[in-house]
């Protein structure tokens, strides 16, 4: 397995190793707080070269690959992507490399204890074991929707990720009620499981694919044509992982990101935020939207449409260096490192003298909120804010109940 992995990755690894630019380093959220050269995209590629040389094995390096949020900043900043990318269609794929190395480790029986517990628990409960007010199991996956009278099934379903369904329930409540306000018909899945993305990110590929298969079968059984994702991590899983798993079988499923949909509805006049919100805000570009998918205009359009806000924006390129630290299982294995990265993100927000940091990613909002508490900066989800400006009583919880 190791040999196949090395053969697959050797040229990509040399492309990085040989150039040795390291332009990625100062935008890497882990590097910025740890300053450890072994936990950089460059090192992640160099390890493959060392494996080919017979100097290292996956057992030597598996634990190093924990130190990555798969935010994708390194890929954007890589000169190999910026330049040779145009002509040879080459793109540095550090995120895929990290996922592949983690998968190789799991295949060879090398487990990080936190990842192992997390994925075993997810396998048992069908949802990630997020701690919060709602018990995590199939019986409670739609508790967040209490009182909203949402139907099951239909051509369009709203997919609610584990953190939002069981912890920050205010987010799906906001999204669902905004959809209702815009008169968009949608239902919930008959039996929603975790999207499988986090398992794939941590290297548990078989489990990830099993969960994906379940969800796709559930959509098929209900005649689903369109899936609305409110969480950037789900969006990445549905638009990057699922097509790889299912190929043509998946072609006719349309995946819609709530933020993009809402900005379009505002543009078309079908949603008009009108309740002024007196907050001084800045926006946190979720990595999986800004860095992985190039989605940064739409959230800003929504925020600019909300009256009353004093919006102190930081451009998307500067935000390549920003991250909450909440992605790719980092808080599962190294919560203290997530906390350092979040704290750094909040320090940037504090420099702007804002009272509120707006995010569009439920997974970022827990660590950011914890870091914000000490600086008296409130962390709010963009959907919560939009709903409020539409005069919606959101309900739900923003923290452990």
């Amino acid at each position, binding site marked *: 397995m190791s040999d196949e992995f090395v053969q697959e990755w*050797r040229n990509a690894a040399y492309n990085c190793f040989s*150039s*040795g*630019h390291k*332009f990625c380093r100062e935008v890497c959220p882990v590097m910025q707080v740890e300053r450890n050269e072994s936990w950089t995209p460059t090192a992640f590629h160099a390890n493959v070269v*060392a494996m080919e040389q017979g100097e290292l094995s996956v057992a*030597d390096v598996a634990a190093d690959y924990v130190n990555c949020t798969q935010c994708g900043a390194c890929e954007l900043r890589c000169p*190999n992507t910026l*330049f040779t990318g145009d002509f040879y269609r080459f793109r540095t794929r550090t995120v895929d490399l990290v996922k592949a190395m983690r998968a190789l480790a799991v295949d060879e029986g090398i487990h990080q204890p936190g990842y192992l517990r997390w994925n075993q628990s997810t396998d048992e409960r069908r949802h990630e074991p997020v701690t919060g007010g709602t018990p995590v199991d199939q019986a409670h996956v739609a508790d967040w929707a209490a009182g909203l009278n949402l139907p099951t099934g239909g051509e369009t379903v709203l997919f609610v990720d584990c953190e939002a369904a069981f912890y920050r329930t205010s987010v799906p409540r906001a999204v669902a009620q905004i959809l209702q306000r815009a008169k968009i018909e949608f239902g919930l899945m008959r039996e929603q499981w975790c999207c499988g993305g986090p398992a794939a990110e941590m290297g548990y590929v078989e489990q990830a694919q099993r969960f994906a298969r379940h969800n796709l079968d559930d959509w098929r059984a209900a005649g689903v044509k369109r899936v609305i994702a409110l969480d950037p991590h789900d969006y990445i899983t549905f638009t990057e992982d699922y097509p790889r798993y299912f190929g043509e079988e998946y072609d006719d499923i349309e995946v819609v990101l709530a933020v993009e949909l809402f900005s379009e509805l505002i543009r078309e006049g079908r949603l008009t935020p009108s309740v002024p919100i007196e907050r001084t805000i800045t926006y946190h570009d979720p990595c999986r939207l800004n860095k992985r998918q190039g989605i940064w205009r739409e959230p800003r359009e929504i925020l600019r449409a909300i009256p009353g806000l004093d919006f102190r924006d930081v451009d998307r390129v500067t935000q390549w260096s920003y991250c909450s630290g909440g992605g790719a299982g980092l808080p599962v294995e190294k919560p203290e490192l997530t906390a350092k990265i979040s704290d750094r993100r909040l320090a940037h927000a504090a420099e702007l003298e804002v009272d509120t940091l707006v995010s569009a990613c439920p997974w970022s909002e827990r660590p950011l909120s914890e870091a914000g508490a000490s600086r008296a900066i409130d962390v709010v989800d963009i959907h919560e804010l939009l709903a409020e400006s539409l005069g919606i009583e959101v309900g739900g919880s923003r923290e452990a109940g």
Partner: protein
Amino acid sequence: MSAVATPGALDDGALEALAQLLGPEHLITAKPARMHRARVPAPFPVHRWADHLPDAVVLPRDTEEVAEVVRIANRFRIPVVPRSGGTGLTDGAVPLRHGILLDLKRLDRIHELDLENRTCTVGAGVNMLKLNEQLARHGLIYPDDPASYPCSLVGGRIGTSGWSLIGSRYGHTRDLVLSFVHVLPTGEVVRFGDGGGAKVSKSSTGYTLKPLFMGHQGTLGVATEATLKLYPKPEAELSPFWAFADYGSAHRAMRELVWADCATFAGAVLFDEHKVAYLRRDDEAYIPQPESVRALVCAVLYGNEDEVRAGGRRLMRIAKENGARYLGDEISQGDWAARHDRYATPLHGRTKAGQVVPMSWHCEDAAINWTALPAVREEWHAIVARLRERSDVFDDWGMFAYTSARTGVDYLTEIDVGIWEQELDDESWALWIAGKRDIAAVAVAHGGSISACHGACREGEVDLVPDELGGGYDVMKAIKRTLDPLNVMNPGKYGLDGAFEENRK
């Protein structure tokens, strides 16, 4: 115990002392961590990686911890190799005798910003781009601008005496660093600047020691904290590119542009015919030019808008009088930004049969007088052609010449060589070393210097350093013996082991 530091001497006692000082988290002996710090972006004999492994990596937090690491190294006679960004191109940070790898990246604090005197004081682990993000809020800039600007760190800039693309306007690292805190090879902490004050740019008190402790590649200790000179962020930047029909006319025109002596002139770059051909062949970021374009010159002006405009008009006129064709605003802005924002290579080359292969970039960087540029160019290309004839591992990526000073006395003269590292073996590596020696010999023979920018301590070129420096090299050895009696700091570099052999005689 040997009189001087010896390889593989890191015993349990030394490890325990380091662990007590730094805590287990910041003393790393795991093999991957040691491998990651065994090389720099310069071509590396991948097949001999293990020869360059340090025995342990330390990640100190401040000057005192760095000093104590050096004292421990002296106590146990262990080599110490300082490393900040690890982006250098002369192997300064590559261990030759194993030992302790002293990684300075955690010294990343901005200690002081003095807006009244326009200075800042930072740790050696601070990156210039990140620093300038902070300074921009105050309308200031620290204009030390190497090709590695997004990733190199202040400490390495001092240890290599770095060169800046816009040095003709703002000076190079030696001019921009006012003073620095330095740990000597025996562990004492001193400040070197002009005179004693931390923020003095010109002093005549005592010996001028600051330059001696820059560019030593870690052989004379390690800088931990630097006080930097700041400039107002320029209002305007102009970077016209001009095309020429041949190298000779571009070479002459560049001198006329430099001699115009515009106050906002920040630098000029000459692309030779091989460089243009290579870009045409393999650099998809390069904007295609008609075949009649054989050489390019770019000049750069930075400063107040009214002054840049006036200077730009003057340079445009001079260029036209010298047969140049202006390539237009889009190319000028785009290409300068691109070249400025990366190490100017597509990172692949071709075999003689035309197959595209991943290659690492090697860059020679001699300092050559204007009059010697054409001859050096011809001799260097001939050396690389012979290498390529003998092995597909090598590819000629052409030459640049950059102004080092605003009078145009000398130029950082760069030949870029692609090296296919996946295929390196002892035979091709030996060819390469011989080629490097030849390239260095040409620079010395023409009255230049082997390195304007990186340093000259890699295999091959280092053999020529005594020839270049003459009696100065004996002084180097005497200083090394005096300040580092146990040869602890980065032993093996610059052939300075020789200083101790003579001592024993």
